[in-house]
């Protein structure tokens, strides 16, 4: 399972590590144990990246300068 350190990683960092893991594994130069470890880490990273890609919630808001809150912004009101 991904640990908390993984959750703090940016999406870019996760993708970079995933790419590196795949390329190391595909070189085929690692030992069997190392290769299995790389594979496990790769599978873990795929899950983290997918989670990160899907976790944001698509909220469209505007800052309310009067009280500093953020309120939903209705884009249709802006004329489109």
């Amino acid at each position, binding site marked *: 399972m991904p640990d908390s350190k993984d959750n703090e990683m940016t999406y870019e960092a996760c993708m970079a590590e995933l790419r590196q893991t*795949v390329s190391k594994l595909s070189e085929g130069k690692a030992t069997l144990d190392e290769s*299995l470890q*790389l594979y496990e880490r790769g599978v873990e990273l795929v899950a983290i990246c997918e989670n990160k890609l899907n976790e944001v919630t698509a909220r469209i*808001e*505007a*800052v309310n300068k009067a009280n500093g809150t953020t309120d939903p*912004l209705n884009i249709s009101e802006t004329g*489109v």
Partner: protein
Amino acid sequence: MFDFDSVSRLNGYIKQSLADNPYLAEFSVVGEISQYTVSSRDHAYFSIKDDQSLINCVIFSRARSQLKIEPEVGMKVKVYGGLDFYGPNGKLQIIATKIEEKGAGDLHEQFNKLFKKLQDEGLFDSAHKKPIPILPRRIGVVTSSSGKVIADIVNTIRKRNPHHDILLYPASVQGEECPPEVISGIRYFNDTKNVDVIIVARGGGSFEDLFCFNDEGIARAVYASEIPVISAIGHEPDYTIIDYIADVRAATPTAAGEMVIASYDDQSKEIDNLALNLDISINQFIDSRRKALDVYKNHKALHSPAYYAMEQKAVVSELKTKLDALSGSAVKQAASDVNEIKVRLDALNPGNVLKRGYSYVCDNEGKAIETVMSVKKGDNVSIVLSDGTLLSEIKDISN
């Protein structure tokens, strides 16, 4: 109250009033050319302005042909002429008779001055540019809350990745309120740290409309921002100071939306591909190891100890066949040699000579007598013919 019974009558009166005013009938005024177009009849229609005001002008072809300069946008000029009110379209304009250059226009001068100052300070250096995250959790946008720009950005971002959060900081994007509001937007996001990237955007407009983004305060706020800033002011050819300071400059607000968001589909595909490669790689790795192992596992030497013996036997057998083949030909060669010798021997056989009527003489021991000196009178000798032998006695010797 005077009652004009038609627009034409009102416009006619305005025209006459202007013509009657000596200050407006003939004057000169200094301004910066902000538009300049030449008609097919070689008249030039243009406008001049300062920080706050603008007036339209026309110079007709005859006066234009007398000009010593070629007026262009941004040029600071002194225009000589008189004011005219053109009734059919209700347009007030200066009919210019002469245009003189007064040096570069104020706004352009301001721009160049600030540009050089900030450039000299190194604020445009690429070393200061921050990378734009491809999957920001939330995108801050500083722009007007009314108008097409925020809608364009939201729609573009949604199209590329429907999962993104967007937070608008409403700000004026024109006039005196623009710099302080844009600056507080950038600061707000930096203070709250609630976005991963900031887009400062404004739709297209004239050089003057966009000029508030050539503001030193905005430039310094963008430079100081710890969050990457994308500028998207006006459209493709428009450049303002903020574009040089921002981490990335987008040609249009829509382009900014595209730039900040990696396509969800593209990212999703890449993750899938990497996951697939991961599986392929580990399988290939295991396969190659297994194959290497199989080569030894299936080796005959490991299955049957007699294998080498059999192999050696085969080698021996092959050698033997080769030897046999070789020895066979040696025998044939020998036989042919013998035959040849036999033919030669036949040719030399004395019997064959005797058959032709010759004979030879030998002593009692069968030894050939080759000279008369080796016999004497009374010796018995044998004369050998082809079909028998004549026993004879030597009666006499002559030579």
